[in-house]
């Protein structure tokens, strides 16, 4: 079975979710492009969008229509060539409408798992629950006559375990997109011990056609991305705990968020990132990682405390940020949750004490001015050398944070999660949009 045949019948499990919808979109676009090649005339391409509720699937179809339209508008120059033999399609608008229709017509929404039984390729993006994944994979393996391949988007569960428990005999690979898949360039590809080479070959070809940057990761729970992110969370919450002797909890959270955002020149602070991913998701990933790594404490009481009070974060259907540990107005952080009072304390009430304590510091350039700046290297060097030479509370916290982030990165290589430091940096640069990789010498 060649590349195109493999993609003639695909299923996405968890298709209406944040990750599933993006995977579905990218795959549907790739399949529509294949179906429009002259050589493939008459061949049928189907992608089953499988999820639990009709309501979610209806929202998914709206999302897909809007995204397919955007994609068509962007590649109108190429699409005119694709449809050049159709005399009825003359104006750009006609060609764009036709392409959207062609993309949507490969997608079959379904709430029934049986829909996956004809597929040659299964993308899995359901919740991070090993038992559930194994159950579904086993069901499909037993009932699908095509011996399909399984691409799992898990960000924490070892692929080898899923392979073994679902008896897939190496027909599985970790193919971990970053959120949102339609935008983020990174894919972590994780081969389990028994993953078949042809599965890996296909994965790399598919990633290339989607114009993704591939970073291979070893099959260790959490892989590179969450391997770094989760330990970053633990560092921040540990620091928050230490700050409690002098600060209220909201003050301490605000301080660490500011350090990790502005002082470290990152796109968002650590607590904002937790809200973005979801407090519940982060907590769950930690517990999954913990179950595979007994010699390290991978548990965050602060997240538990928030979750117990119903603080979850995550996004609304339109992609805007829900309130979580932090409160947001028009995408900006305006408050911090106080578990004692069970309400948000406004940032304006925290500013005075925290900023005073952080000490006199020049303000660094914001991340967005640095990330694409050709003079980025110089800006970062000069900023961090300033941090290094300043003895203030804020500068010292920044130093500690940056050095811990570096240590985590180096450890991922020592622990043989990542093949090298460059891969760790690539993940943080492309998957987390950082302006620089964690393994650097700015603070050494």
């Amino acid at each position: 079975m060649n590349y195109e045949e493999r993609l003639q019948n695909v299923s996405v499990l968890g298709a209406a979710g944040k990750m599933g919808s993006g995977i579905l979109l990218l795959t549907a676009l790739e399949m529509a492009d294949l179906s429009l090649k002259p050589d493939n005339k008459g061949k049928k391409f189907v992608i089953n969008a499988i999820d639990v509720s009709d309501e979610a699937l209806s929202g998914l179809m709206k999302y897909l229509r809007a995204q397919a339209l955007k994609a068509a508008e962007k590649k109108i120059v190429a699409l005119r060539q694709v449809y050049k033999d159709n005399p009825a399609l003359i104006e750009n608008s006609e060609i764009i409408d036709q392409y959207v229709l062609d993309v949507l017509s490969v997608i079959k929404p379904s709430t029934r798992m049986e829909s996956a039984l004809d597929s040659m390729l299964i993308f899995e993006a359901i919740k991070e629950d090993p038992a559930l994944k194994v159950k579904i994979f086993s069901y499909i393996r037993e009932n699908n006559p095509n011996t399909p391949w399984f691409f799992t988007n898990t960000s924490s569960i070892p692929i080898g375990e899923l392979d073994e428990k679902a008896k897939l005999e190496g027909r599985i690979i970790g193919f971990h997109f970053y959120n949102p898949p339609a935008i983020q360039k990174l894919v972590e590809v994780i081969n389990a011990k028994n993953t078949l080479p042809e599965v890996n070959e296909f994965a790399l070809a598919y990633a290339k056609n989607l114009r993704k940057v591939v970073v291979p990761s070893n099959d260790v729970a959490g892989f590179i991305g969450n391997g770094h992110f989760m330990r970053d969370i633990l560092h921040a919450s540990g620091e928050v705990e230490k700050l409690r002797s002098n600060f209220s909890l909201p003050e301490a959270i605000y301080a660490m968020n500011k350090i990790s955002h502005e002082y470290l020149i990152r796109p968002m602070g650590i607590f904002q990132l937790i809200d973005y991913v979801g407090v519940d998701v982060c907590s769950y990933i930690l517990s999954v990682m913990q179950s595979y790594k007994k010699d390290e404490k991978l548990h965050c009481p602060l997240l538990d405390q928030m979750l117990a009070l119903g603080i979850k974060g995550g996004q609304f259907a339109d992609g805007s940020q829900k309130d979580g540990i932090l409160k947001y107005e028009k995408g900006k952080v305006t408050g911090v949750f106080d578990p004692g009072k069970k309400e948000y304390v406004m940032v304006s009430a925290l500013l005075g004490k925290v900023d005073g304590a952080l000490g006199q510091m020049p303000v660094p350039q914001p991340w967005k001015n640095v990330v694409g700046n050709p003079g980025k290297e110089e800006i970062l060097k000069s900023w961090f050398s300033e941090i290094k030479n300043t003895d203030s509370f804020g500068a010292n916290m920044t130093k500690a944070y940056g050095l811990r982030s570096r240590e985590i990165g180096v450890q991922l290589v020592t622990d043989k999660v990542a093949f090298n430091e460059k891969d760790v940096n690539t993940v943080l640069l492309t998957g987390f949009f950082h302006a620089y990789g964690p393994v650097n010498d700015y603070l050494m």
Partner: protein
Amino acid sequence: MVAGYNTISMGTGRKEFSPKKERPGLEEYLKEAGQGTLKMIGGAGNVDECVVGNFIASRFNKQANLAGFFPFIDEGLKGKPAIRVEGACGTGALALVTGIRSVLAETAEVVLVVGVEVQNTVKAMYGADILAAAGWFKDRKEGHAYFFPGQFSDRAGAYFEKFGRDKTRKALARWYKNAIENARLCPTAQEFHNTTKDLEALAMAEPNPRGFVDYLNVFDCSKVSDGASAIAVVSEEGLKRTGIPKEQAVEIIGFGQAEGDITKKPDDPTVLDTSRQAVKNALESAGITIDKVATAEIHDCFTIAGVLAVEALGLAEHGKGPDYILEGNTARDGKFPINTTGGLIGWGHPTGATGIHQAVTILEQLTGKAGDAQIPIPADRPYGLTLNMGGNDKTLVSIVYKRGKNS
């Protein structure tokens, strides 16, 4: 001609422009420009006829029958004759010529001429569909997604091939630099807020055929603009009626029109032969030669059109346009300043208004009212010239102007 008025040319580049924010529509632009001119000529009571130039509001704004907006501009225009004319991007000058012909035919002493276009209602790839109507629709299927950029990219490619890419590419970048620097001197210009330091380096960007056309980059293209311009075409009698002194007016010394066959591809893509014909007609009609002209407003819908127009004007031999530009002749301090408020690249290109904007700029330059953009007008070269083009060198109008004098 007297009493020129330009609205701001609105679109990307202006600080106040945001595609997501609500913006003025056709009505507001027509009203602002129309009233601007009416105020200067003593009100609607002095107007005999009205002409509105608009390319294609029927698609950008789902609005036709624009002549019906004159009484909306001013109640005093109700019941007066009005007409709408169209000749794609050459619409504005066609509207002027319509007014001129009325005055020559002595059916009117004062004609209010307004041009308008509001194009930021759709995204670029859909705007390209709409603007493609300036070409033959039967060519649309085989044309580029960005149809007109594609047409002029082909001209640029042919010119590169025939006369060398390096020199020509540098001249295109210089053209862009001159346009932006001139626009920075004119508060209504779309590029008025442009602060880029090294404009020529920016304009040397390699074309991106995957996303755009083969031989031109985005800096080679005129703007997508919303805007309106207005002016009054008056007879000597009409001028007296408005009470405006002659030296605040420009006299129309001559004009030339020429039409190319919309169904035919250019014989030689490196030549704008219809443009050349229109300029020749205009200069003959005026009884002057190009060396008597101090400044010109020419139709640089693309930088390459600027190069080709320099040759069509007879300022440089065929193949030498790039040298003429690179020697600095067309810059504001050069021998023959062109597009002194930025032209279509720098000031903007609200298609139906462009020909009128050109006339307003010449009026301002010749009467010393161009503000920061003012250039000196030598006594031995007292003329100004405009060249407005519809389609790919199809509908052409060139007009020769001179400052009015009390006799």
